[in-house]
């Protein structure tokens, strides 16, 4: 279930999780981004929701552009390709979040270990980063069309 367990040593996972959390806190300081959902969110669950929600908003915008007869077919293909790339990692983010929540509950119930939670946290952070990169490509594609 915790797909990355072969790749992360517990210590590595903890350090990575802390460093990534640091970067998430740091990005909230960017001027002009006060309305950005990713920087508004505070908890890891809220961050994941903000990244996935941003993906959904841009996916819906892309779907609207695909229906627009004034948008060129080759541009629509770029939107479709960006969505096809982002959707799997966005959905993987959801699965990683479920693993993280399960590991958190297991630890609280005494059925799990801190190491398992650390791995799940690192896995979730990895998918947040991957989904963010793929959503960025979708945002760029949608923005490129809408500013023509």
């Amino acid at each position, binding site marked *: 279930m915790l797909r990355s367990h072969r*790749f992360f040593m517990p210590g590595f996972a903890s350090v990575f999780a802390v460093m990534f959390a640091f970067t998430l806190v740091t990005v909230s300081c960017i001027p002009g981004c006060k309305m*950005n959902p*990713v920087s508004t969110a505070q908890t890891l669950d809220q961050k994941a929701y903000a990244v996935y929600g941003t993906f959904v908003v841009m996916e819906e915008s892309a*779907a609207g552009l695909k229906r627009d007869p004034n948008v060129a077919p080759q541009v629509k293909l770029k939107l479709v390709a960006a969505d096809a790339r982002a959707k799997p990692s966005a959905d993987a983010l959801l699965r990683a979040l479920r693993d993280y929540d399960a590991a958190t509950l297991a630890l609280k119930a005494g059925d799990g270990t801190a190491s398992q939670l650390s791995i799940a946290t690192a896995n979730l952070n990895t998918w947040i980063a*991957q989904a963010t990169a793929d959503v960025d490509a979708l*945002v760029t594609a949608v923005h490129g069309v809408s500013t023509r």
Partner: protein
Amino acid sequence: MNTNVNQALLLVPDLLRALAAAPASSSFLTPSIDSILNSIAALILAGEAGYEGLQALNDQIKAMIAANRDPTQEEWDALKARSDAAHAVLQASTPS
């Protein structure tokens, strides 16, 4: 899925190298997150595609913070359903 896992894992060394190279006092930004924030900020400033949706999402997260809670399963399910619907439109083989 394996491809995506590999892509995600390839990202980790780059992140760690960049983090290690950043001065402790700097406001270091992970390149991908920095990039999406810049893109979103441009959208917000321009008031273009996705503006209202992002504003609604931002308000929703602010409400969660005010209520001191995380997203509920119902909220996640609603978001997933919206994504699946938009994805179906985008990936439909016939031009819209």
